[in-house]
Every structure is written in structure tokens, then in C-alpha cells.
């Protein structure tokens, strides 16, 4: 950077004599500064990763690029990591961060950013939500650093910074505040300019003192300067960056219109010949700002609803270490630690209760307001609130691994994701801008040749402004934002725009049986007794206790059914368990055998006289458990996997929607047929005795026959089938597997949500189509109107904004559509 005995300051590039220079090593390279201020600024810019600022500046000075500036030393890298550590997620080399990108105004901006950033080596995933301007980026730390990515974004004219998904609101507030200020300023200036402009119009028709005319024009010009350059600053800036990155957006059209009107008028004022269009220049900006203001307010309203999750962040917990209770920061809690929670506490981690019983409010995740009772051995999930009593639990997962964090991440993802349709719209509207520029030029040339400049000029501006495809750009994201928000309120998390579009097309629903249509938990549904001489209380109490030695769903059912019987209990002895058959034990004077017919045969118990009953129980798909005392059959327990209460209703709703249903089960054919009878399905709608692969094959066959299949299963053994179906829903109890394997997550784990998710998707999708239709319709109708000179530029701007505003309001109406259609369905 040497030039004679002078040096360029490394910050401001001012040529400075060597003796006045400050020389400081920054990160191992000797840097020169003209003053301490520059030195400080340099270090700060360097720290936040804005090195390319210097490259741009050097280019302007004709110095050539200094590539070294972007390559960070290890020390810098470390400082950068420190700076953004709390934002960056993911261990290993693949990192993830959420970015908020400012200065994005339209589909073209989104497109430009995505195109450029995705092409960087090492960037694995980059999606921008055009609605919220948030993005999620995943990259390989070995190939590229976060600093380099942020640099590139800054280089094309946008400003990106990491944020926590849950802490986004303040920035949006700041944006709205800025917009409010500029909108108000623009309104005030526009009104005053308009007032004088009316005087000038009147003068044009009735004649006016030339001195007064010049005076009014001058005043209008002075007022318009802040109107265009202060109030319109975001638009001008946006346009500038659009041009620099070579992908024109709607800002270019507006800026072109407004600046053309302004500078032509200035020329006319200075030369004293011709009319002025200062009112046009101002009103264009005013209407665009108005449209943006409404959009930003609507977004704020929607984001407020996800804000509720913020209240569920907890910083400290009570840890039990060697029997001592200590207050501990959440960072110090690891898997396996024991924590104590008091009534009213919110759980920041997942775990298993080791001591105590309490009720839990899980409504934040499930939308279910009835508290759930849990006791030792039960799993408790993060985000739930302890209601009743103090308990101790052992931590099973912390931090990003908890169910609550995963759900939040999924919510964020679902809002970021773009449906295929919106990607198409993005591409089309970018190309559309070239078309508009062309139409405006043609209109201008035509009218200039036929009617002269004074007429051609406003018409060209009208075309530029009226044809702006911004309503088209926000049509899809606005509806998606409202739609996913509404689903979330009802405990349905639709993971991405793609899933939403598949959901709309679903024309075949496949259910698993166990754990899906049934609760998956065995219960004693009937007790048949034959011998009155045996003390049943004593027998069953002992049986319940003896069954604790066996881990089997049937044993569990018996246990839970008979525990808590009050009466004589003698304890039990001589316990023997026979796997797959049953158990025998001694209590008081009774020698008890409890199990299936095989056990009875082994024990020499006569049961053939009750064979009819046993067969009918088995025929119903239930399990008979025979109980013999001292060699005589005294009772038979009927045990069954209960059908979920909402199963029948859900199937009825699906039939109403004309979506065919089939059941694929691994269970025995009789059991499945029995279930079909109870649920009112025909025999050809059910298939039993299928392995997980068979199920997957069945799904494949359905898909090959052209169906869009929705599969509802229980996460673990249905995983292949679930992942094969276009829409997979798993009914696991808020488990990690169900979060990962399904496209739609039912946070409340209830069957009616299946119907709800289809209804929600259909409503959202039809809203998207409606929005797109109106936006397109508007453009098709308005371009000729502008080109034929029917509308003056001001009204063109008003019409344009109106179309955007109508799209926003139409999307908000989706809430009402959803609520009323649910009310009609009885939810």
C-alpha cells in the first residue's frame, strides 16, 4: 500500500505521509492508519466480518482486490466463532445457523440471495422465507466459514445477521418503526406537495402569474427532496442493490418511476419551461410504503402467536448431586443428572420420573388442556409445566436434543420452507420484471411518436408502477404463514410446503392398527366368573402382585386392573413364570394358575366346558386369560387392546370427505377383521398378518396405481411404510422417532388431527390459488390500462398497493375460513 513516502490508510484510503501514520499489527499483518478512529473502525469491521467493504473501496480507487482480507487467520476465526457461538448449532463440521436478512423486499431479492449463496462451495442448504426474511443456512465448516457467507451476502447488498428463532420480534419491531416513520413523513410531504400541485394544475388550465408558478414549483421541489430521498430511502437502496446484483426487483420499477418524475421536474423548474410531476414522485413512494407497512403489521400479528414459546425458556434448575440440592445453570445439566422440580416449574429438559407423582400441563406442545398424571418410570417432556407436586427426575436429553427444541426447530423450518408453487412464482416474477421494463419502453416510444413527450412520459411511469408483480410475490408466503400458524394452534405441525401440497392431493389413507386405531395398551374389558366359593378379592390382589414379576402387556393389564383392591391380601409365594403360557403361584390356601389354555393343559385343569366362551372371546380379537384355583377353573379375564374413542368418528369424517381408507396390520387376520366390523369397514378394506416390508410393498402398490397416500402408523415398526407414503404421520407419544419420520407431526397425538391436517392443507392451498389468481388477474388487466394511458401514475401506484394489501387481507381471512369449516365439522 505504499506510494512514495505516503501510505494509504487501510480504513479510509486517505493518502497519508509516513510520519503521521499509525502502524499497528492487526492479526499478524502490519496495517497503516491515518488516525486512531480509523484504526478502531477497521478492527470492528474486521471483527464482524465486513472485510469486503475494503475490497469494494479498493476497486473504486483502482487498487485491485486484496484477496487476503477475506481469509481469516485462526485467531480471527476463533474470535468470530466466539462472537456467534450462541447462535451456531450443530457439532462437528456441519453447522447450522438462522439468519435474518434485511433489505429483502420482494421475490427477486429472495431469488438473488438464494442463487448466489447456494452456489458457494460448502453451502449445503439455504432457504429464505420471503414472508419473514428469515433464513436457515447449513454449511460445511471445512469448506467455508460463516464470515465468508455473511461477507458474500453483504457484497450483494443485503445485511444478514444470526439470530435465535425465538428472539426475532425486536428486529421486526425496529423495521416496523422505521417504516412508520418514513410512511408518516411521506404522507405529510405528499399532502403538502399535492396541495400546491392542485394550485399548479388550476394554473395550467386557467392561466397563472409566471412568478407565482415558479415560486410554487420551487417550493414543491424543495419539499420533494426529503420525500424521495428520505422517505423513499429503503426503496432507492433496494433498487441500487438489485441493480448491483444484476437481478432487478420491484424496487427498481418504483425507483425508476419516482426518480424519472423527480429529475424531469427539476429540469423543468430550472429551465422554467414545462410542467412538474413532483406529486407523482411523492405519491408513488407513499403508496408503496403504505403497502409495505400493512404487510409488516400483518406479519407482526402472526409472529406474536409463536411468541408464546418464549415464556417456556428456563435458565436455572435444581440439581441433586450426592443428595445435595444445588442451583445450577441449564448449561451444566447433562444426561443422567437428577433434577428436582416444584409445582409451577417448567421443565427445560426431557427425563424420566424417578421419585414422586404429579400432574403435567403439556398444552404448549399438544394444545391439550387437560393435565396428565405421571408417576415414577413415566417420561416427562420438556416444555411441560409441573402442576401438583414436587418430584425428582433423571435427565434423558438436554439442549438441542430435547423434544421441545426439536419441535421449535421444526416450526421454524416449516415457516422457512417453500412450497414448489412458490418457487415457481419466484422464478416467473423475476422474469416478469424484464417484461415490464420492455412494455414501459414500448409504451413510451409509441406515445412519444404519436402524442409527444408530455403525454408519453406519465404513461411510461404508469406502466412501470402498475405492472409491479409484488402481489404475486407475497401471495404464496402470506397464505402459508397464516396456514401453518393456524395448524399449529390446533396441534398439527406441517413440516414443509411440499408436505402441504401433498396433503391437499391425498386420496388414500392407510391406517396401522395397533397403537394407531387402538390405544396400543391392553386392558381388562370383562371378567367372567364361575366359582362363588373362592374369595375373589384375595385371589385378584395376589394375582396383581404376582404379575409384577412378568413384563408382558397382558400382565400389565391385569396389574393395573386389580391394583388397589382393598381386602384380604396374604402375599404370594412359590412363583413360577412360563413364557408364552402364564404364571403359577401360591397365596394363602390357594394354588393359583393364570394363563392361556396351554398352561391349563399342563396343569391338568378342565376348561373344555367353557370352550364356547373362550372361542368367542378369541373370535372378538380379545385375549382370554384363564384362572384356576387348586385345579379348578374359577374365572376367565377378557383382555383387549382398546379401540381409540375417536377412531370411528375419524373414519366417518374421512368417508364424508370421500377419501378411501384401508387398514394394514401385523396382527392376526381375525383380530383385524373384528376391528373392521366394529369400525364399520368392509373386509376388503383391511389386511392382516403383514410384516413391515409387506406394509411398505402395499403402500408402493398404491402409489404405483396413481394414488397419493397418507399413512398413519406408530413410528417404530411402520417406519419403512411411513417414509414411503407421500404423507407420513406417526402417532408415537411425542417421541423423537415420530418427529423425524413423519411429514406431519400431530403434537396432541389424537386421531381427529388427521382429518384436521387435510382440511387445513386444503384451506391453505385454495387460499394460495385464490391469491395467485387475483394477483395475476390484476397484472393482466392493469398493464393495458396503464399502456393505453387511462390511469395517471398516482392512481397506478394506488392500484398496485391495493392489490398487495388485498392479498394480505385475503390471507388473514384464512383464519376465519379454517375456524368456520372446523365448526361445521364439529371440532
Amino acid at each position, binding site marked *: 500500500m505504499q506510494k512514495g513516502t505516503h501510505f494509504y490508510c487501510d480504513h479510509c484510503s486517505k493518502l497519508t505521509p509516513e510520519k503521521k501514520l499509525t502502524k499497528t499489527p492487526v492479526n499478524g499483518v502490519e496495517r497503516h492508519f491515518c488516525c486512531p478512529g480509523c484504526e478502531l473502525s477497521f478492527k470492528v469491521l474486521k471483527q464482524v466480518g465486513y472485510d469486503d467493504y475494503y475490497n469494494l473501496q479498493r476497486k473504486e480507487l483502482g487498487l485491485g482486490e486484496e484477496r487476503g482480507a477475506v481469509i481469516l487467520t485462526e485467531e480471527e476465526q476463533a474470535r468470530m466463532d466466539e462472537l456467534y457461538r450462541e447462535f451456531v448449532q450443530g457439532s462437528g463440521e456441519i453447522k447450522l445457523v438462522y439468519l435474518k436478512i434485511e433489505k429483502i423486499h420482494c421475490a427477486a431479492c429472495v431469488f438473488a440471495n438464494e442463487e448466489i449463496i447456494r452456489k458457494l462451495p460448502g453451502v449445503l442448504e439455504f432457504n429464505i422465507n420471503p414472508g419473514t426474511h428469515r433464513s436457515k443456512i447449513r454449511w460445511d465448516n471445512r469448506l467455508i466459514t460463516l464470515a465468508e457467507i455473511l461477507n458474500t451476502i453483504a457484497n450483494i447488498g443485503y445485511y444478514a445477521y444470526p439470530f435465535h428463532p425465538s428472539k426475532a420480534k425486536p428486529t421486526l419491531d425496529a423495521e416496523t*418503526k422505521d417504516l*412508520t*416513520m418514513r410512511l408518516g*413523513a411521506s404522507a*405529510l410531504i405528499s399532502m403538502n406537495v399535492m396541495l*400546491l400541485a392542485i394550485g399548479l394544475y388550476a394554473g395550467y388550465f386557467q392561466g397563472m*402569474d409566471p412568478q407565482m408558478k415558479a415560486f410554487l414549483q420551487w*417550493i414543491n421541489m424543495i*419539499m420533494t427532496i426529503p420525500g424521495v430521498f428520505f422517505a423513499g430511502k429503503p426503496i432507492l437502496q433496494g433498487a441500487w442493490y438489485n441493480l448491483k446484483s444484476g437481478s432487478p426487483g420491484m424496487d427498481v420499477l418504483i425507483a425508476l418511476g419516482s426518480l424519472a418524475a423527480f429529475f424531469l421536474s427539476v429540469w423543468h423548474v430550472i429551465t422554467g419551461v414545462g410542467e412538474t410531476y413532483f406529486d407523482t414522485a411523492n405519491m408513488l413512494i407513499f403508496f408503496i410504503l403504505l403497502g409495505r407497512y400493512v404487510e409488516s403489521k400483518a406479519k407482526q400479528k402472526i409472529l406474536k402467536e409463536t411468541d408464546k414459546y418464549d415464556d417456556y425458556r428456563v435458565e436455572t434448575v435444581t440439581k441433586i448431586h450426592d443428595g445435595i440440592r444445588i442451583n445450577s445453570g441449564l448449561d451444566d445439566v447433562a444426561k443422567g443428572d437428577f433434577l428436582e422440580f416444584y409445582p409451577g416449574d417448567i421443565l427445560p429438559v426431557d427425563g424420566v420420573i424417578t421419585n414422586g407423582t404429579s400432574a403435567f400441563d403439556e398444552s404448549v406442545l399438544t394444545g391439550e388442556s387437560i393435565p396428565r398424571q405421571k408417576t415414577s418410570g413415566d417420561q416427562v417432556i420438556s416444555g411441560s409445566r409441573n402442576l401438583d407436586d414436587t418430584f425428582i427426575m433423571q435427565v434423558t436429553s438436554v439442549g438441542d436434543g430435547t423434544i421441545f427444541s426439536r419441535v421449535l426447530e421444526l416450526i421454524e423450518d416449516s415457516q422457512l420452507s417453500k412450497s414448489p408453487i412458490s418457487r415457481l412464482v419466484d422464478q416467473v416474477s423475476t422474469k416478469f420484471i424484464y417484461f415490464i421494463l420492455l412494455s414501459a419502453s414500448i409504451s413510451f416510444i409509441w406515445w412519444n411518436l404519436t402524442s409527444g413527450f408530455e403525454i408519453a412520459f406519465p404513461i411510461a411511469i404508469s406502466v412501470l408502477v402498475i405492472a409491479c408483480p409484488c402481489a404475486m410475490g407475497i401471495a404464496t408466503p402470506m397464505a402459508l404463514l397464516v396456514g401453518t400458524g393456524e395448524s399449529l394452534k390446533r396441534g398439527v405441525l406441517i413440516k414443509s410446503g411440499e408436505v402441504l401440497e401433498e396433503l391437499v392431493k391425498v386420496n388414500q389413507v392407510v391406517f396401522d392398527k395397533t397403537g394407531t386405531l387402538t390405544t396400543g395398551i391392553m386392558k381388562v374389558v370383562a371378567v367372567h366368573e364361575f366359582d362363588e366359593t373362592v374369595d375373589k378379592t384375595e385371589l385378584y390382589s395376589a394375582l396383581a402382585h404376582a404379575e409384577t414379576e412378568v413384563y408382558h402387556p397382558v400382565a400389565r393389564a391385569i396389574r393395573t386392573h386389580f391394583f388397589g383392591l382393598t381386602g384380604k391380601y396374604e402375599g404370594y409365594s412359590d412363583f413360577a413364570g412360563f413364557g408364552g403360557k402364564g404364571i403359577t403361584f401360591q397365596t394363602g390356601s390357594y394354588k393359583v394358575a393364570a394363563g392361556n389354555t396351554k398352561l391349563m393343559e399342563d396343569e391338568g385343569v378342565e376348561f373344555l366346558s367353557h370352550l364356547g366362551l373362550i372361542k368367542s372371546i378369541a373370535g372378538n380379537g380379545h385375549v382370554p386369560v384363564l384362572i384356576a384355583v387348586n385345579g379348578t377353573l374359577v374365572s376367565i379375564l377378557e383382555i383387549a387392546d382398546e379401540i381409540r374413542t375417536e377412531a370411528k368418528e375419524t373414519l366417518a369424517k374421512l368417508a364424508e370427505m370421500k377419501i378411501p381408507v384401508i387398514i394394514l396390520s401385523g396382527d392376526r387376520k381375525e383380530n383385524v377383521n373384528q376391528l373392521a366390523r366394529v369400525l364399520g369397514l368392509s373386509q376388503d378394506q383391511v389386511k392382516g398378518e403383514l410384516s413391515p416390508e409387506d406394509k411398505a410393498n402395499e403402500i408402493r402398490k398404491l402409489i404405483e396405481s396413481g394414488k397419493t397416500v397418507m399413512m398413519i402408523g406408530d413410528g417404530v415398526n411402520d417406519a419403512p411404510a411411513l417414509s414411503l407414503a407421500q404423507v407420513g404421520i406417526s402417532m408415537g407419544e411425542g417421541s423423537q422417532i415420530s418427529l423425524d419420520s413423519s411429514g406431519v407431526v400431530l403434537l396432541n397425538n389424537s386421531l381427529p388431527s388427521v382429518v384436521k391436517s387435510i382440511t387445513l392443507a386444503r384451506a391453505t392451498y385454495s387460499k394460495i390459488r385464490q391469491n395467485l389468481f387475483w394477483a395475476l388477474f390484476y397484472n393482466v388487466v392493469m398493464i393495458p390500462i396503464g399502456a393505453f394511458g387511462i390511469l395517471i401514475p398516482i392512481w397506478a401506484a394506488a392500484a398496485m398497493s391495493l392489490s398487495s394489501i388485498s392479498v394480505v387481507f385475503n390471507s388473514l381471512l384464512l383464519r376465519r375460513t379454517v375456524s368456520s369449516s372446523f365448526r361445521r365439522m364439529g371440532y
Partner: protein
Amino acid sequence: MFSLYILIIISLLIAAGAFLLYIWAVKTGQFEDLEETKYQVFDEDDDEVPTKPQNGTKTK
């Protein structure tokens, strides 16, 4: 006719004053939450809530 020049300039100055006032209002957050203001009387902020009046003590 001359009065018109004066009056327009005066009106401009008043408008400029309103403009500055508006900028000040936005910057100090007067427009931030138009919804919430009407509920403020129901808020029980610890600092603002007067305790039960006792003899000789003034409530806020």
C-alpha cells in the same frame, strides 16, 4: 398577492414543525403499540401499584 408568498412560507414552516414532531414521536415509540395502551390501567406493575392507603401515607 404578496401576502400569498408570506402565508405559503408560514404554512410550510408549520408543516416542517409537524414533520419534526412526528419524527420525534416515532423515534420515542409513541406509535409502537396502539392496542395495548387501553389495557394499561389493568396492569399490576409492582412499582406503580399503590398499596392500601394508610393513615398519613400518600398513594401514588
